[in-house]
């Protein structure tokens, strides 16, 4: 028999981690995409490459970098520990950061394409109509780009849900605390609990396929009219 402990707990934890990771990745991804899409500055190409890096780097390598940065002796982790008494390693918040980094390229790419697709003329029209840059962004750019951004955010969510390598490095596999779905699948297979593994695999697949279909729908040209 499947127990809620084995299925529901990792599922809810995964949704929580993926949700926060998506939020984080979307805010950061949209801001950076906007900066790169609209401004020319030195280091622009490097920033663009950096944003794409998590897509091609092995997640365990990313996880290791995060561990070094966020660990007790790392520059960020050490500062957090000394000044705020917070440690992110082996916590669900740590898993959020790992998942957010891995999901970032997806939302960044989607947002950049969407923002670059907005006709500059609409933004100029808004400026001549007396709008500040904040207003132009919120009243014109964002509403015209939201489909692409949302599609990117949904892909990021799907990616965050399936995150394994970096999460394991940073947050470990503590049942009920940091053991997300994909890690729980691994543990279940290792322990020979095939029924648990089967169920978790099906749940994960259904969620990911649904998200892909929905985001594809958002990006379909016909839906834009």
């Amino acid at each position, binding site marked *: 028999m499947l127990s809620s402990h084995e299925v529901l707990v990792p599922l809810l934890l995964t949704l929580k981690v993926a949700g926060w990771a998506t939020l984080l990745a979307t805010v950061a991804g949209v801001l950076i995409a906007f900066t790169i899409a609209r401004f020319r500055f030195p280091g622009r190409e490097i920033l663009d490459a950096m944003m794409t890096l998590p897509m091609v780097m092995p997640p365990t390598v990313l996880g290791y970098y995060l561990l070094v940065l966020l660990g007790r002796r790392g520059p960020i982790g050490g500062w957090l520990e000394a000044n705020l008494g917070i440690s992110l390693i082996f916590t669900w918040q740590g898993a959020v950061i790992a998942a957010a980094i891995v999901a970032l390229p997806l939302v960044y790419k989607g947002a950049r394409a969407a923002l670059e697709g907005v006709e500059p*003329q609409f933004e*100029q029209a*808004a400026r*001549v109509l007396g*709008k500040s840059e*904040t*207003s132009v962004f919120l009243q014109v750019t964002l509403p015209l780009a939201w489909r692409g951004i949302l599609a990117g955010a949904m892909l990021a969510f799907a990616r965050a849900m399936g995150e394994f390598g970096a999460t394991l490095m940073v947050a470990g596999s503590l049942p009920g605390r940091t053991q997300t779905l994909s890690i729980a699948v691994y543990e279940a297979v290792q322990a020979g609990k095939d029924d648990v593994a089967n169920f978790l695999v099906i749940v994960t697949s259904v969620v990911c396929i649904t998200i892909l279909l929905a985001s594809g729908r958002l990006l379909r040209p016909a839906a834009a009219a």
Partner: protein
Amino acid sequence: MRIDVDIRKTLRSNGREFVLDAKFICEDDRSVVFGPSGAGKSITLRAIAGLETPDHGRIAIAGKVLFDSSLGIDVPARDRSVAYLFQDYALFPHLSVVENIGFGLKPWWQRGLSADVMRRVDELLELFELRGLGRAFPVELSGGQRQRVALARALIRHPDVLLLDEPFAALDPLLRERMRDELLKTRSLFKVPMLVITHDPDDVAVLAESLVVMEQGRVGQTVDLKSSSYRDEEGHVNDRAIRALLVRGMDGKAQPLRSSIRAVK
């Protein structure tokens, strides 16, 4: 209303250089800058609106300095109090006609239009014969309707000057004539001075009190079309005299302007 323009800007693309050196003064309520495409008219108009920054020079409207490179003044477009009618109108595709017209008076934190703004939008809908189209979106409108929405959107803020970029180029020839008349009526109703850029001699004949001719980035003659040499006895515009003037081009020599003038019958 006096518009002072004296700007220079060098543009480079694909190894080619374009030098804009535009200097003119418009003092009439209906001024037209005429020239073939590529003459630098658009960039000049955009510079007046604050959408383009000249390398050097000075721009002032009614004595208010909007740009002065030597004093380091560059008023942002949002504070210039000019209205700009884009060639294809640039209506916001995600907003209805009402939302487009009220856009300039709706702060971003506000959900809908305030009752006060709504009343003004309603008046403008009435005035521009757009009643019943308030909830329509730009894609559902005809070319003439789009232009009226764009005008209403531009005029709701009572700008100091109305800048128009090839306002009739996107319309059918028959509709053009009607929209020119409409524009003249609107202009006098709102008592707003306008500056039109165009490569269409008909625009010059119908709209202009004064004419600035531009070619290859430079400004030639400024002509007062109110003078009797361009009017018949009843004071109507003499189409032929104006056409002859335009064909002579910038230097006043009988030499066709590059490209667009040849398309004129």
